């Protein structure tokens, strides 16, 4: 850690645990005053020069948001002061198509995260968002030539109005979906828009990285992915924020439309700092023969509520989701998965692994709903948890709701700790007990790590190791 950063953390009175927890040197730009009202929504819309229908949608969402009470279930949100959040802040930088055009201080941040390098080697395209605005976006030429669109969401509103109007917060995540989807719809900014034309299979992943830097900031990026008939695409999202004393809020929204026979793989590693409220909405609507694959890692944030959902509305649609959660001291991570099987021969699998230590709270909350139309549908849910010490808590609340007799639905969950025998065996082979513990935790997370693209697997492994060092060190 550089002397300068150490100074910052000392000033804040907060120990910065990982390099990503340190705030970047401020990039003075434009930020709205904290708090939320109609004027804030007007201001955001004016900043972006938005069409009227979008402004109307924002205002309707705001009205709904103000009328809707906070959810009565799940983690405690009382520490989240919605009036203190800065809902829009724009860094003093324009969107660039080349990393050398990105201001040096912002670039340093993303360099440290390894985005430019990954883009060069393994990605088809990359985007980076800093607070409310996207500061970098580029798609490799070959994909652009085939009609693939990979744009900043704000640009997409201008360049592809019909597509956006048809798919943006309509039947996938309607504006009225829930309290924080309403908030998102009112103040969203930035994010990614991806359109893959029929039959195009994008060979390498597209990636976006979201960095929230402002104290008491809010990030509300919107990701809209449309995979047209028979196409396929893989998209990776990474997120982080520095650590401040006051809470910040992330309420993003991901909408994925999967047309007949198309396939989307969506991976995200969310590593927000420990004072972030991560109240995120992710949902995919899958048509006949399509498939969605969710891969998620939840390591950071103080409080998370995140339940990626798959709506399988076409016959033979599939959903596969795999998640890993690591809850450390002071964290309340309430994550899960929803699958709605509403057509014949649909298949959904959910696998979740949670690890908690040091008083952390990890909750799995799942819902599998099989409607009467889902003949010959199959669903399986599997969640395993590992508790590393006696002060931590694991909850699992799965729900299976089945209205059709021609189905097979199973659920299984286990909770336990690392067995003495396992540690004994490994120590008898010459490992120290700490190494043994680390190895077992890594093995426990392995099914998830294996499925990640290599670079991410390395990152996740490092994050796990970092967490474990705190646990055993």
């Amino acid at each position, binding site marked *: 850690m550089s002397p300068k950063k150490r100074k910052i953390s000392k000033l804040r009175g907060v120990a910065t645990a990982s390099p990503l927890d340190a705030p970047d040197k401020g990039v003075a730009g434009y930020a709205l005053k904290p708090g939320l009202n109609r004027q804030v929504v007007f201001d955001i819309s004016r900043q972006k020069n938005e069409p009227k229908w979008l402004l109307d949608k924002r205002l309707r969402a705001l009205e709904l948001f103000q009328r809707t009470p906070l959810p009565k279930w799940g983690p405690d949100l009382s520490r989240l002061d919605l009036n203190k959040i800065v809902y829009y802040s724009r860094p003093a930088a324009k969107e660039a198509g080349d990393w050398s055009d990105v201001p040096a201080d912002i670039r340093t941040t993303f360099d440290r995260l390894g985005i430019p390098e990954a883009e060069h080697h393994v990605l088809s395209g990359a985007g980076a968002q800093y607070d409310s605005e996207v500061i970098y976006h580029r798609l490799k030429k070959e994909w652009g030539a085939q009609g693939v669109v990979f744009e900043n969401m704000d640009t997409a509103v201008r360049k592809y109005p019909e597509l956006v109007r048809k798919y943006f917060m309509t039947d996938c995540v309607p504006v009225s979906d829930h309290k924080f989807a309403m908030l998102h719809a009112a103040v969203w900014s930035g994010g990614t828009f991806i359109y893959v034309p029929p039959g195009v299979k994008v060979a390498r992943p597209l990636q976006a990285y979201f960095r929230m830097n402002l104290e008491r900031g809010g990030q509300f990026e919107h990701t809209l992915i449309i995979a047209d008939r028979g196409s396929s695409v893989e998209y990776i999202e990474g997120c982080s924020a520095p650590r401040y004393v006051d809470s910040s809020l992330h309420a993003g929204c991901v909408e994925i439309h999967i047309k007949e026979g198309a396939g989307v793989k969506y991976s995200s590693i969310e590593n927000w700092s420990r004072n972030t409220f991560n109240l995120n909405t992710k949902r995919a609507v899958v048509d006949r023969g399509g498939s969605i694959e969710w891969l998620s890692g939840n390591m950071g944030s103080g409080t998370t509520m995140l339940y990626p959902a798959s709506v399988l509305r076409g016959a033979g649609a599939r959903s596969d989701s795999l998640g890993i959660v690591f809850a450390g001291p002071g964290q309340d991570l309430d994550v899960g998965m929803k699958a709605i099987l509403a057509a014949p021969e649909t298949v959904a699998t959910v696998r979740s692994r949670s690890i908690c230590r040091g008083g952390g709270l990890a909750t799995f909350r799942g819902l599998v709903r099989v409607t009467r139309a889902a003949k010959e549908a199959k669903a399986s849910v599997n969640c395993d948890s590992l508790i*590393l*010490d006696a002060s931590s808590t694991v909850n699992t609340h799965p729900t299976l*709701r089945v209205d059709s*007799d021609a*189905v097979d639905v199973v659920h299984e969950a286990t*909770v336990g700790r690392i067995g003495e025998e396992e540690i004994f065996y490994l120590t008898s082979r010459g490992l120290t007990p700490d190494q043994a513990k680390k190895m077992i935790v890594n093995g426990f997370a392995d099914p998830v790590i294996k499925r990640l693209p290599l670079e991410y697997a390395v990152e996740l492994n490092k994050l796990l190791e970092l967490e474990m060092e705190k646990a055993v060190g």
Partner: protein
Amino acid sequence: MRPNQAEKSIVRGVNEPAWLSILRRRAQKRYLAAENPGLKYGLGVSFDAAAVAWPFEMRTDGHDEAVEPVISGDRGLVFTLTEALKDKMIAAGLRKRAERLFSADDKLYAWHAAACGRTLVVYLPKGYRTVRPIRIDHTLTGSLRLDKLIVLAEAGSEATMVERLLSAPEQKNNSSCRVAAVDVLADGGASVNFISIQTVNEKATIFSRRRAWAGRDAEVRWVSCGFGGTFSSVSTSTVLEGAGARTDIKDLFFGHDRQRIDLYQEARHLAPAGHSELACRGALTDEAKAICRGLIHIGRGAGRCQGRQKADTLLLNDAAEVATMPSLQINDDDVKCGHASAVGRLDKEKLFYLMSRGLDPATATRQLVEGYFSPIIGEMKESGLEEMVSCLIGQHFQPAADAC
């Protein structure tokens, strides 16, 4: 209900001691303050509470039928509340645990605690073992029946209790409601088995709340079989408050027509080295609907506990509906806990196999369903109810000439 009406619902004039009257009044207050049960358990998992005939909304005057339960087996151990309060030993035991016995979390049971007069007390002295099961037969004859059973099992005692609930034959077309509470207090090393079977008519509404507190090395086993009723709600919970306590909770149900079945099982581990097994096994046909919820809670410091929870449902018809919600709340690392649930249909291959051996489809189905239920029926060995349960299940496939 207006307060003065509620006031009427309190039991009066049965010469109850002052401490009990105070508790009843407290329960009544809670009842008046509480909201009606919502029957909403999660996203899209609910019953229509408006369609349920809540007993506290019925007219309360002259409702409670007079027919007392028939008790057989070890008759000498069963007392009415009035008798029990006259006996110094038992009265002292009741008073010591009174707060617990007359506590209630929801509106219905707060009302029950205030209004229920018909209370039986089973007293098992230290080291006592029943030779035959204590059998209690309830027959629904009127529109509303409230009853309560308190089991005081002193250290090292052992007992099996069998409860049977049915509608009187002349009740065929009348709707009725029963609200029952069973509280078991099992002291160190005591072992209590409670087996129940319910075959009321299709217009009856049934509420059963079963609770147990298990002391050191005590064991409480619950088996319950539900067949009848338009709406039946059974909630069974055991608090394992002594080290090494064990509990088994097994529910069996067979739902048909438009039956609504609401099941809840809970094991609360507050002491180390406890063991709990929760199982729920049912079949649904026609337009029946069931919600099976469960919870295993491990308190902080309750290490070396084991808890298993299993919920299986067989859907025999497309219009039947089930939701299962097993939950775990684990606050200690030294545990082995898990749950599993499965929803499915009869295995077509097994059916085909049986038919290829000459069985007609109805018999083959019946055999498979019986096989599916056999693990829970096996738990009822001592009760003498095994055959009856098999017969009741079989009825759904081949209407028998004579009733079970």
